[in-house]
C-alpha cells in the first residue's frame, strides 16, 4: 500500500486533510463524505501541509514560461508529471542544499 506522502506526491496535492468519516460506503456514507469535504473546503481552503509553506514570489513572465516549458519536457519522459511551481520549488531546494554544502 502507498503511504500518504507517496499518494500526495503522485497527485501533486497541495494539502492532505484527514476526514472524520468512519465508513463512507453506500449512498449515505458518500453523502456524509461529501458534506465533510464541503465543510472543510468552506473553512480552510488552500492550507498547505503542516511541514510546508506556500508563499507567493514575483518572477518575470519569461522565467515562468521557461519553467513551464521545462516542466512539460520533464513530464514527457514517462516520469510522473510535474508542474512549473513544483519544478521551481525543487530548483530552490536543491540550490539551498548545494549552497549549504559548499
Amino acid at each position, binding site marked *: *500500500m*502507498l503511504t*500518504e506522502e*507517496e*499518494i*500526495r*506526491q*503522485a*497527485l*501533486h*496535492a*497541495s*494539502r*492532505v*486533510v*484527514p*476526514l472524520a*468519516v468512519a465508513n*463512507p*460506503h453506500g*449512498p449515505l456514507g*458518500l*453523502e456524509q*463524505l*461529501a*458534506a465533510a*469535504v*464541503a465543510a*472543510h*473546503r*468552506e*473553512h480552510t*481552503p*488552500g492550507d498547505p501541509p503542516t511541514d510546508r509553506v506556500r508563499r507567493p514570489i514575483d518572477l518575470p513572465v519569461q522565467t515562468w514560461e521557461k519553467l*513551464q516549458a521545462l*516542466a*512539460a519536457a520533464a*513530464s514527457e519522459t514517462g516520469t*510522473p*508529471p*510535474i*508542474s*512549473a*511551481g*513544483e519544478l521551481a520549488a525543487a530548483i530552490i531546494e536543491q540550490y539551498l542544499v548545494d549552497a549549504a554544502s559548499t
Partner: protein
Amino acid sequence: MVEQSCDPQTIFHSALPVGTSLIVIFVPSQDRDGQAIDQDYWVDEVLTTLGRLFRGATAYPRGRGVWRDDAKGGVLLKEEPVIVFSYVSGESLTTAALAELYRTLSRMGRQANQGEIGVVIDGKYYGITEYVEE
C-alpha cells in the same frame, strides 16, 4: 423458535477484500467564477480514467457543497458536485496509476477553471491546486 443473529456481510459476500481502497473524486458543477461547466463531460472523463486504471467506477449524483475562493475575496461558490468513486485493490493503487489519474484531474482543473480538485483516498482528502500544462 429463536433465530440466531447473522452477519449480513457474510451472507451477501459483500465485505471488501483486504487491501481494498476507496477513491472518491468530486466533479464540480461550476468554475471558480460561478459559471456552469460541462459537468457530464468531466464525469465521463473521470469514469473512463478510473475504469481504465482500476477496472470500474460509479458516478453518484448529486451532492451539494460550497467552496470559498480566497483568491477571489472569499466569495462562496455553491456547488453541486457529482461524486465518482471506485474500489481499488492494493496492487492497482500504484504511483503510476495515480500519476495517470492526476493527468486527467489536472486537465479538468485547468480547462474547467477550478480553484481546487478534491480527491479522497481512504478517508484522507487530497486537494490539488496546481495543474500541469499538456
